[in-house]
C-alpha cells in the first residue's frame, strides 16, 4: 500500500536508529500524545529499539480513556432505553462504566450498533424514524469535523430523531495540564499528527515557548515516529525548543480550514472533565446553541446519572500524565487486565495499560518474578 509500506521499511528504520544512537549524549524523556502512536510504538517495538537513555511516555492521547465515567454511565443509560438505537465507534464498547459497559448492555438486549463513520449513525436515524438514534460523539480534534458534519446534515435534512452525546476533548490544554503538573518529567513532545492535520500547529508555538519544550508534529508509521523522535532529541541536544513538522506530507501549519470552520459552527469550546486527571478549563467541545436541539443530554432526562468516584486502585490518571508506567501499578496484570479492567486505560487497546499488557507481559513478568 502506497504511503504505508515505505514508512515501515526496516533498513530505513535502522538508519534512523543509528542516527539517534549517535545523537544522544544524556537521558531524555519524551511524551507522545496519541493513542495511535502508542499503538505503533508497541506494535513495532520501537521503544525497545531506542537507546536505553531515551524514555517514551504515553500521554493522555486516548479519548476513550479520558472520557469521564459520568459520560459512560449516561451512554449506558441511553443505550438501555428501548426507544433508543445507540450508535458508537467500536472503541467505546468495552470502556467500564460504574456498573457495566456498552457491550453488556448489548448482551442484555439493548440496540447498540458499532459504526465506522458518524454519517452511518445519521443514516440509521433516517432508516428508523420510529426510534431515537443517539450517536456517541467522542474524540479529539481529528474526529470533530466528521461529528460536526453529521449534526450539520441532520439539521439541514430535518432528521429530528437524531442526537449526539458529546464528549470531545482538545489536545493543547491536555499538554499544558501535563506540563503544569509538579511531577512532570517530560522534556519534549511528539504532537498528534492527525489532530494537527485538522487544527494545524500554530497553537503549539506559545506552549513550546512558555514551557521551553520542543514539540514535533509526528505521523504514525514507524519511520514517522522514529524521525519525530530524532528531531525532538536533536532539539534537546542543541538546546532548542521549537515546533517542527515531521508529518509535512499531511499536515500544514494552518491545518484544514473548511474543517475548522464547520467545527466552529457546530461546536464551541467548553470546560471538560478528563477521567483520571480532573477538570481542565476550556479543554472540550460542546454543541453551540444553534445545534443544541441535537444534544442528547438536553433531549433526554439524564439528571439521575451524575458524577461517580473511580475505583481507588486505578492509577490511570497518573499513567495518563506519564507520571507512572503501567507496570508500576499494583493492580497491573493481576487484578486489572483487559478481561476485567479497573480503568479505561486497560480497556482501550490504545490505552497505555492495555498496550503494555498486551505487548509487554513477557518482560514485565520477568522483572516482577525476580
Amino acid at each position, binding site marked *: *500500500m*502506497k*504511503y*504505508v509500506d*515505505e*514508512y515501515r521499511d*526496516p*533498513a*530505513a528504520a*535502522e*538508519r*534512523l536508529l*543509528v*542516527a539517534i544512537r*549517535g545523537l544522544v549524549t544524556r537521558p531524555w524523556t519524551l511524551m507522545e500524545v*496519541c*493513542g*495511535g*502512536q502508542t499503538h505503533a510504538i508497541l506494535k513495532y517495538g520501537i521503544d525497545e529499539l531506542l537507546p536505553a537513555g531515551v524514555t517514551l511516555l504515553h500521554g493522555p*492521547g*486516548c*479519548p476513550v480513556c479520558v472520557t469521564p465515567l459520568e459520560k459512560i454511565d449516561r451512554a449506558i443509560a441511553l443505550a438501555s432505553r428501548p426507544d433508543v438505537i445507540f450508535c458508537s*465507534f467500536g472503541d467505546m464498547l468495552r470502556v467500564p462504566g460504574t456498573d457495566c459497559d456498552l457491550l453488556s448492555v448489548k448482551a442484555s438486549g439493548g440496540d447498540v450498533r458499532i459504526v*465506522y*463513520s*458518524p*454519517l*452511518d449513525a445519521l443514516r440509521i436515524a433516517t432508516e428508523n424514524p420510529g426510534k431515537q438514534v443517539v450517536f456517541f460523539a467522542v*474524540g*479529539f480534534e*481529528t*474526529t470533530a*469535523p*466528521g461529528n460536526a*458534519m453529521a449534526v*450539520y*446534515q441532520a439539521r*439541514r435534512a430535518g432528521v429530528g430523531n437524531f442526537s449526539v452525546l458529546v464528549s470531545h476533548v482538545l489536545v493543547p490544554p491536555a499538554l499544558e495540564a501535563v506540563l503544569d503538573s509538579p511531577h512532570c518529567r517530560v522534556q519534549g513532545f511528539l504532537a*498528534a*499528527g*492527525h*489532530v494537527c*492535520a*485538522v487544527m494545524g500547529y500554530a497553537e503549539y508555538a506559545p506552549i513550546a515557548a512558555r514551557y521551553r519544550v520542543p514539540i514535533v508534529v509526528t505521523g*504514525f508509521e514507524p*519511520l*514517522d515516529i522514529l*524521525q519525530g523522535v*530524532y528531531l525532538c532529541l536533536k532539539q534537546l541536544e542543541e538546546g532548542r525548543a521549537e515546533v517542527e513538522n*515531521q508529518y*509535512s*506530507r*499531511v*499536515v500544514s501549519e494552518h491545518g*484544514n480550514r*473548511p*474543517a475548522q470552520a*464547520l467545527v466552529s459552527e457546530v461546536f464551541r469550546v467548553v470546560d471538560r472533565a478528563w477521567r483520571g486527571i480532573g477538570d481542565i478549563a476550556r479543554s472540550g467541545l460542546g454543541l453551540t446553541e444553534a445545534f443544541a436541539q441535537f444534544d442528547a443530554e438536553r433531549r433526554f432526562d439524564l439528571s439521575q446519572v451524575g458524577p461517580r468516584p473511580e475505583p481507588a486502585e486505578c492509577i490511570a490518571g497518573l499513567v495518563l500524565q506519564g507520571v507512572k508506567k503501567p507496570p508500576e501499578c499494583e493492580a497491573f496484570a493481576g487484578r486489572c487486565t483487559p478481561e476485567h479492567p479497573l480503568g479505561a486505560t486497560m480497556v482501550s487497546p490504545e490505552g497505555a495499560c492495555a498496550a503494555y499488557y498486551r505487548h509487554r507481559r513477557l518482560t514485565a513478568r520477568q522483572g516482577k518474578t525476580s
Partner: protein
Amino acid sequence: MCLAVPGRITSISGDDPMTRTAKVSFGGVLVDVNLAYVPEVKVDDYVIVHAGFALSQIDEAEAVRIFDELSRLAPDLEEGGEPAA
C-alpha cells in the same frame, strides 16, 4: 485518536460540496469517503481518511523529502543498514 489511513481516490460523485463523496481505494478495498473538507482533490489523488472523512490530501513532494533527509542521516551506513567496516 488518530486512526487515519492513506488511500487513492478512484471516482468522485455529488454536486453538493457538503456531500461530495469519493470511492477511495485502500490496497484494492473501496470505501465511500466524504470529501467536504478537501474540496480541491481529484481522481488519483491520495487522501488521509478518518472515520469516513478525508481530512487532508497527501503532498507527494513532502513525502519524498523524508527519504531524502534519511539518506543524509548516518552516512556511514551502507545499503542494508550495516555500518561500513
